[in-house]
């Protein structure tokens, strides 16, 4: 047994971690209580099997690539960082990238991850044409929109619960350069922030960093980052068409004492960050895709700044009609506590593609909290607001929501369960997350 956790380092639980080297060995590894694990960037307990966890990152081969269409077939353990470095210089990038590039293709499919372009271009699953799936029952099937389509749409966003994704065929985006033309807008409060995001629907990328300790008149003040792919003629003289991707240089070598992040340090940081951003607002500049898409990747192991006890991310989405009021209410309560960290993000989402995909048309808010004090009770309180508004929580970030919150947020759950059952009648595929939220007890 090994102690395993997700990116938030909460919870930490026992599971046998296997690292198969062949698809046959993957098959042998799957038995009662198994789930696949990609690069472990889900925050909570999604990538931990109740008994056994099958690590997939050894499967990182590209099978084929067609430079005429951008279509690629690859093994599911391949990291997006690898794809960007390999195919970026050849003029292709993933259509959708989350806030870190250190995720596997399998993990990105299983969570149907959204990027800063979800409002216009949809999620990761939209660009997946087919998958090779090893079901809990032991079959290896190819699933696409046409063939085994139930399995396909249940696997996109299905958190690994339909089986192990072995390979995928997907499309990459032609991109002349690896640079983004970024425009920053400063919004002095929540209304201004949401107005700015509404007005930016035509932007390819948009996201707001929101200061969740600012209160009163400043409640919801934000910096909105818009982005477009830059063409070659927009680059600085002499700049390479594709920027060098530096390995994270700095790393957090030890668990910082949980004192480091307190309401004063967070407030000071946010004040500084907002002012600096606001000064830059208005103009536009060309930045490398790395800092634009993955600002946190430059600090390796940053999850350790929350100390040994780990941290929780609370990411909800609130349907469009109620979004303003409910988000205002949530932010008000969060600001009053003052311990949500500086990594707070507000973003407009569109429709999700998978049966259990998180996104729905509305606004998503993501907040980080250190694990301490009465945080679990507080988040239950926030969940009630989310449920009442017809919203839901993102499974890839979750470590603590209740069954009731989950069931209320995902009305397609019954349909998902039926498909899951048909692929895995004996219930071999089980994660700590499924045990907590899905499985019959």
């Amino acid at each position, binding site marked *: 047994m090994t102690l395993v956790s997700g990116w938030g380092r909460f919870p930490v639980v026992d599971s046998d971690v296997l*690292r198969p*080297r062949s698809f046959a060995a993957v098959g042998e590894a799957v038995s009662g209580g198994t789930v696949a694990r990609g690069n472990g960037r889900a925050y909570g307990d999604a990538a931990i099997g109740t008994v056994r966890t099958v690590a997939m990152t050894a499967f990182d*081969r*590209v*099978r*084929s*690539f067609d*430079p005429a269409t951008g279509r*690629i077939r690859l093994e599911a353990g391949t990291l997006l960082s690898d794809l960007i470095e*390999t*195919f970026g210089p*050849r003029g292709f990038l993933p259509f959708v990238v989350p806030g870190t590039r250190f995720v596997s293709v399998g993990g990105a499919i299983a969570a149907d991850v959204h990027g800063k372009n979800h409002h216009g271009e949809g999620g990761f699953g939209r660009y997946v044409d087919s998958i090779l799936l090893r079901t809990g029952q032991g079959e290896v099937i190819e699933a696409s929109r046409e063939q085994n389509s139930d399995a396909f749409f249940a696997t996109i966003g299905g958190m690994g619960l339909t089986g192990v994704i072995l390979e995928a065929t997907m499309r990459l985006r032609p991109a002349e350069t690896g640079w983004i033309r970024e425009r920053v807008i400063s919004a002095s409060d929540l209304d201004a922030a949401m107005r700015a995001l509404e007005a930016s629907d035509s932007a390819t990328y948009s996201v707001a960093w929101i200061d969740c300790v600012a209160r009163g008149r400043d409640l919801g003040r934000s910096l909105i980052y818009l982005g477009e792919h830059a063409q070659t003629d927009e680059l600085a003289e002499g700049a390479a068409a594709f920027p060098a991707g530096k390995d994270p240089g700095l790393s957090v070598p030890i668990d910082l004492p949980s004192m480091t992040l307190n309401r004063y340090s967070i407030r000071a940081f946010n004040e500084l960050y907002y002012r600096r951003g606001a000064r830059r607002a208005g103009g536009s500049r060309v930045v490398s895709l790395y800092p634009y898409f993955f600002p946190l990747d430059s600090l390796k192991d940053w999850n350790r700044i929350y100390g040994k006890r780990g941290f929780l991310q609370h990411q909800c989405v609130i349907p469009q009609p109620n979004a303003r009021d409910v988000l205002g209410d949530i932010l008000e309560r969060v600001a009053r506590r003052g311990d949500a960290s500086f990594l707070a993000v507000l973003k407009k989402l569109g429709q999700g593609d998978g049966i259990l995909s998180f996104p729905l048309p509305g606004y998503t808010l993501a907040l980080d909290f250190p694990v301490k004090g009465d945080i679990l009770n507080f988040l239950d309180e926030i969940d009630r607001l989310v449920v009442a508004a017809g919203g839901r929580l993102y499974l890839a970030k979750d470590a603590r929501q209740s069954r009731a919150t989950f069931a209320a947020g995902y009305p397609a759950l019954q349909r998902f369960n039926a498909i899951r059952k048909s692929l895995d009648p004996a219930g071999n595929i089980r994660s700590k997350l499924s045990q907590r939220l899905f499985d019959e007890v």
Partner: protein
Amino acid sequence: MTSRKSAIVLGGSSDIGRAAARALAKAGYDVALAGRDVAALEPDAADLRARYNVDVGLHKFDVLDTASFEAFVDSLPALPDVVVSIVGLLGVQQNAESDLAHATMIMRSNYEGPSLILGLFAERFLARGNGTLVGVSSVAGDRGRASNYVYGSAKAGFSAFLSGLRARASRGGVHVVTVKPGFVRTKMTEGMKLIGPLTVEAPVVGDAILSAVEKKTDVVYVSGKWRLVMLIIRTLPEAVFKKLKF
């Protein structure tokens, strides 16, 4: 247009072999992979072609079959610019202590075979007047330790071979690189207790090999920390060293 540079990786199916092949292909080399089971190398060849749009050849090579080495080198479509030998066998120390066949296999896989094949390529390279040879040895060869001296002694022999070959071949325009990776997270080290800060991932070794080829480095400790660790281990007096349990 100058023709493309070419490299052959012996032991291409190992994690470090795959990483070295990727690093070289990325840098524009046409790469050949050589190993015992050619069919098993096919997915890796497809990977290199798809990623880097390079030519990839596959060749059968068995490091224990020394009698076939000359024919193997002759059978290559062209003499490559770079040869990288990753072949090796960790084996099981405890078995090697009493099972002579197992000990022999470890010695032959880590010393005899790699030395002979690189020596053979060296002759061809010297006749041509250029070329680079890379031998992946091990920090385990820096001093025999109770826990793995059969493997370590074979690696020590290989390191000494490379060192002598380098001194001789450098006069003839041929460069020899010795790589000592330290702990690498690979198939071979699966299940072993590795010390986090001293452990690297295979791609880091691949990049280090490429950089040593390009910069003509002599001896590479992939993580600089290992150079220090091994300096200390090498200089401990034998009386102290023999009491250490590692």
